[in-house]
């Protein structure tokens, strides 16, 4: 009990010291105003990063490749070390993996019962990408811009190009489902939903950008950097990671199922007379 109290006091002292230190530490001034920071978070026309020593790209693209690398590395490790040891009676970790795969597979099967092989794989990828990509901003990985300033790598989908890329790709997947299921009629069916690529792209962009802007705003002022980030950073990020994952995958599966469903011609009933 006495040791417990000592530990608590020590922790409080460390927190108080860090708080005092951060408040009274010398502030060297900002290189950009809050307006510039917010504007750049949306347009990415100032803080760009050189991609593989070549073209200057938005930080979101670098984040996207990093997220892919992290996901593929994790998948490779799971494939080598975990999946071969799968048992008929699953353990907790195996159960979690099976639940995630089963979730997207069942979503594909439920929404598109006729044709769902590729859809399952696609929404699994999209779900993993959106979820991990959104949580990626919590890591706060640093990069150096072409102007030589340090920058925190944002969530990939807070970049409009990434959001358009995923939104349009999802639409193309839906279109491919229509063609595979109904041929030329399927194209017509998919084209009827012409607003879908725009709505899916900008829904993702808007949701992720709003998170980014709030985080930018909070971190812009040092005094707001205590306790508040726990709520706006971690909880909000977690929440919209889950929501956006669910929304995009569900919409893609739903529209895919709708356009790939084969039409059955009703036989003309013989008239009684």
């Amino acid at each position: 009990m006495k040791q417990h109290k000592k530990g608590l006091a020590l922790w409080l002292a460390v927190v108080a010291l860090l708080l005092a230190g951060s408040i009274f530490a010398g502030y060297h001034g900002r290189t950009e105003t809050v307006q510039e920071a917010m504007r750049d978070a949306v347009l990415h026309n100032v803080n760009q990063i050189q991609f593989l020593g070549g073209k200057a790209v938005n930080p979101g693209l670098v984040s996207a490749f990093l997220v892919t690398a992290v996901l593929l590395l994790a998948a490779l490790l799971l494939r080598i070390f975990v999946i071969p040891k799968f048992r008929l009676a699953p353990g907790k970790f195996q159960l979690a993996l099976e639940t995630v795969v089963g979730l997207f597979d069942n979503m594909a099967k439920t929404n598109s019962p006729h044709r769902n092989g590729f859809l399952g794989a696609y929404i699994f990828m999209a779900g993993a990408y959106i979820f991990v990509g959104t949580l990626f901003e919590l890591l706060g990985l640093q990069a150096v811009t072409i102007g030589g300033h340090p920058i925190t790598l944002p969530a990939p989908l807070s970049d409009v190009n990434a959001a358009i890329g995923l939104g349009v790709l999802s639409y193309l997947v839906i279109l491919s489902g229509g063609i595979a299921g109904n041929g030329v009629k399927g194209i017509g069916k998919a084209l009827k939903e012409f607003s879908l690529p725009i709505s899916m792209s900008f829904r993702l962009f808007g949701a992720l950008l709003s998170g980014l802007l709030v985080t930018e705003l909070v971190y812009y002022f040092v005094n707001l950097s205590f306790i508040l980030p726990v709520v706006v950073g971690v909880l909000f990020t977690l929440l919209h990671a889950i929501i956006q994952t669910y929304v995009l995958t569900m919409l893609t599966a739903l529209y895919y199922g709708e356009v790939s469903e084969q039409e059955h011609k009703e036989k003309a009933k013989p008239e009684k007379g």
Partner: protein
Amino acid sequence: MQIPLNIDWQQILLHWLNLAILTGGLYFLLFKPVKQFMEKREAHYREMEEQAAGKLQEAERIQESYQQKLDQAGEEIHAARQKAQLAVQQSAEEQLAQAQKQAKQIVAQARAQAEHAKEQAMKESQRELKKLATEAAEKIAFRPDEDPFDQFLNLAEGGGAHEVR
């Protein structure tokens, strides 16, 4: 031409490249093997369930066959019991009929014996009566000092004179 929001087609294509790599990688490294394992397990449990269902069906078939045999045996027992009862009843009736027949024979025999004994007795008594009558007649007839006719008459009148004498 400046595209609003700094949309860059090249970067969009790079994002597509990234997503294509991710889709293929995740499919072959994670999605497919896990799904295959789940399908394999499902097939394993389905097979077990089918085997169990097959065994259950076999057990039901055996039970039905034994039940049929049991029912058949019951019917056979019932038939045998009926047959035995019939045989016993028939035997009892035969014995009863025989007994009745014997009884009738015994009664008839007894009646015949009784009739014969009665006839014998009658004959014997008649013979004795005849003998007695003969002796009596001889006694009467062989009184030397009296006239036989008178003796007879005296006897017929009551025997008073004879008594007086």
